[in-house]
């Protein structure tokens, strides 16, 4: 017994001492590397910065390439080169970015990152995917696509984001066709990836919006809406009549984002959809479209049995020009839920100050503020 206790104390102490030793060694090593890095940083980064700043005017000479290739062979210098490249790509766009990609390929930086993709360490792979995306080298497409089936969320995300940044349409489409709705990534992260695509977005949307997989299809319909290109509006509007609820909602959101009111009649019809989520989004989108044809249907939607539909309808109603006039009709009506929601939205979203301002310029009696107060008093009684 005593021995067990003594040994356990001894083992635990050794572990802690080892941890301390590891920590100190690592800190010392880090310090040593940083000092070494500082010594060469100016020379390496200065040399590269000089070349990068003249890329638009001059070709990189063989001598310069040879020197840069030499840097890549040294771990510390390679880290500096990598840092600088990532910084350039973060801040530079256009033709200089393409030239930088070519330079990264020529000096072997891309090959070095590609080599890291073979690692069994998934953190290393994910980081290499991210870096390859930043460098935007098409040379990486094949290797990135090979990784798409890996069941590690971090790798999958970074592969898709890298493909988005590289901007090759066919590779991007293929990657998404190989995904299924069992993908653990959230819808928002996939929309972010779709939004980040740097190639021909319209071509990609046209290919991926029509996929049978409603999850992926909805993502691209939504992303198309974020892109706000009216060329896609007709195609998006087709999904308003789709049987699938997700696609319908995605199309509604997309058209709302685009602010294209050519489809307002179809959207108004969706205020009667059997799904309350569709009705709620339709009510919200009508506010974004600012079309006064929606006013009367929105007043009707204030009596919907679902709170969210009523809430969105009320918000949209008062945001459309002329909508506030209809508040009188609502207050004179019988539906208490409709009255409650419209009064709430007037106070919370529209603002009491604006109600008073409206009264100042309106000749209608009683004043809207008085009508609201009267209703609240009656309700409180």
């Amino acid at each position, binding site marked *: *017994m*005593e021995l*067990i*206790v*003594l040994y*356990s*104390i001894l083992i*635990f*102490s050794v*572990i*802690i001492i080892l*941890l*301390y030793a590891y*920590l100190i060694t*690592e800190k010392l090593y880090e310090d040593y590397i940083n000092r070494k890095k500082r010594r060469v940083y100016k020379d390496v980064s200065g040399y590269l910065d000089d070349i990068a700043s003249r890329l638009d005017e001059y070709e990189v000479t063989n001598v310069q390439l040879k020197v840069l290739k030499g840097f890549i062979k040294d771990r510390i210098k390679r880290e500096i080169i990598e840092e600088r490249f990532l910084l350039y790509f973060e801040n530079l766009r256009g033709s200089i970015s393409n030239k930088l990609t070519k330079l990264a390929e020529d000096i072997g930086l891309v090959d070095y990152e590609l080599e890291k993709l073979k690692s069994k360490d998934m*953190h290393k792979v*994910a*980081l290499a*995917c*991210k870096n390859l995306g930043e460098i935007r080298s098409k040379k990486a497409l094949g290797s990135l696509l090979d990784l798409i089936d890996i069941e590690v*969320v*971090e790798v999958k*995300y*970074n592969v898709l*984001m890298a493909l988005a940044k590289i901007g090759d349409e066919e590779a991007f489409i293929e990657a998404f066709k190989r995904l299924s709705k069992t993908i*653990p*990534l*959230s*819808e*928002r*992260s996939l*929309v*972010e990836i779709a*939004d980040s695509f740097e190639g021909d977005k319209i071509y990609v949307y046209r290919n991926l919006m029509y996929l049978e997989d409603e999850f992926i299809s909805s993502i691209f319909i939504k992303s198309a809406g*974020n892109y706000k290109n009216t060329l896609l509006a007709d195609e998006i509007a087709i999904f308003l009549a789709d049987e699938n609820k997700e696609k319908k909602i995605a199309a509604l959101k997309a058209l709302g984002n685009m602010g294209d009111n050519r489809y307002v009649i179809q959207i108004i019809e969706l205020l009667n959809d059997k799904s309350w989520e569709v009705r709620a989004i339709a009510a919200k989108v009508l506010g974004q479209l600012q079309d006064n044809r929606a006013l009367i249907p929105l007043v009707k939607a204030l009596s919907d049995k679902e*709170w969210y539909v009523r809430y969105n309808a009320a918000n949209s109603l008062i945001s459309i020009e002329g909508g506030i006039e209809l508040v009188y009709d609502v207050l004179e009506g019988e539906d208490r839920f409709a009255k*409650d*929601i419209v*009064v*709430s939205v007037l*106070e*919370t*979203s*529209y*603002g*009491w*100050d604006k109600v008073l301002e409206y009264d100042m310029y309106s000749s209608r009696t009683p004043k809207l503020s008085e009508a609201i107060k009267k209703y*609240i008093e009656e309700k409180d009684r």
Partner: protein
Amino acid sequence: MNTPLLKSIVINFNYFIIYYVLVINFIYFIQLILAAFNLSDYIRKIRYSDYKKYMISDNMIPISILVPAYNEEETIVENIKSLISLNYPKFEVIVINDGSKDNTLNKVIQEFDLKEVNQPVRYRLKTNKIKGIYKNIDIPNLILVDKENGGKADALNAGINVSNYPIITSIDADSILESDSLVRVVMPFIENKKTVAVGGIVRIANGSIITRGRVVDIGLPKSSVAMFQIVEYLRAFLTGRVGWDALNSLLIVSGAFGAFKKEAAIEVGGYAKNTIGEDMELIVKMHEYFLRNKIPYRIKFVPDPVCWTQAPETLKDLRSQRRRWQIGLMDSLFKHKKMFLNPRYKQIGLIAVPYFWLFEMIGPIIEIVGYVMIPLAYIFGLLNLKYFLLFFAASILYGILLSLGAILLEEYTFNKYPTLKQLIKLSLYGILENFGYRQLTTLYRIEGIIKFRKMKHSWGKIKRTSFQNQR
């Protein structure tokens, strides 16, 4: 009873205690090692995380921050100011005044020029009556809810009913978030759609300089009680939570800072009202519900979204806090006793819940009995000096090693206390806490066990001071 039998009982019981101490410390060490690997993983993951991209993205999930407040007039205004200036694309702050008896309500109304509005509420979770909702159209992301007193859980449920966004986070009214904490705590929801809850790390603000709701200089407090708690929090979060997270068996997401998928919280009935450990109870309920219904889910702990909180500096407040924690823990474990060693609940039922029963709940009793029995047995000549010293040295040394391990993890990872002086002070308190402080908190937990039936429904407040008055 004859003497040999009594002697045999005492000796066997003492052996049981020694084995118990060995097992519990072995588990702690396993946790420490798991935590070290898990933290190392996390640190590497940060290097390729896209969280900065999401800080300005429209695709970031909007979030509702719930701030339950009961007699928080000292800190509530600063806290709200700090929250509404957070760096996050789209969020709302919902302050729920749970029938405070002090000036909390008026202070908030006056400071933010709020007006009562007629906002209907969808009671998806049953709560006490909401007396009024206040807003200022110029601060659209601030909502004040005034309700009848019903306890913290009831206040949080009212906040959920009023909230507009799919993720809710609960933050104590006496806490401060770092500017990018929200983004970091929401990232697991972005990365994995199965995520239903995420906990962040809670650190102690005593001793740090806070200006306009921001921690501008991290320091260590002068108060010994607060210092001990800094070491304790490091051990609880960087070893305990991170270790449990590595086993996918997290049972607690701190009430001071946690984020939840709203629909998941509503699905399990929201925060439980008849308990004071509502934070643990919600997480255990989620495990129970999702495992029972075989729904894939994920509960994560992320160690760098920091929430700064005030630790009690008096023994009276510390006693009240620890008593409350113990009661909350026991209440939750009793409520879900069917999970104990139940294979249906996988690693939660087979590892986490039994651990909490055997070591966290019963632990204080065995520890105190050990402290009494072993010296007594020695005094009455039933134990030899070697055994007595062994027990004493083992329990103290294990404690010291675990605390030093947690401090090491902190230095290795986030290094919030970077100077040598701070490291030495932390290490010193890591040693000193084993000589009195630890035993004292064990006694407070025993009191919690004794008063369990009587106090399991109370709010349990500690005295707060304004953050501005601190260093």
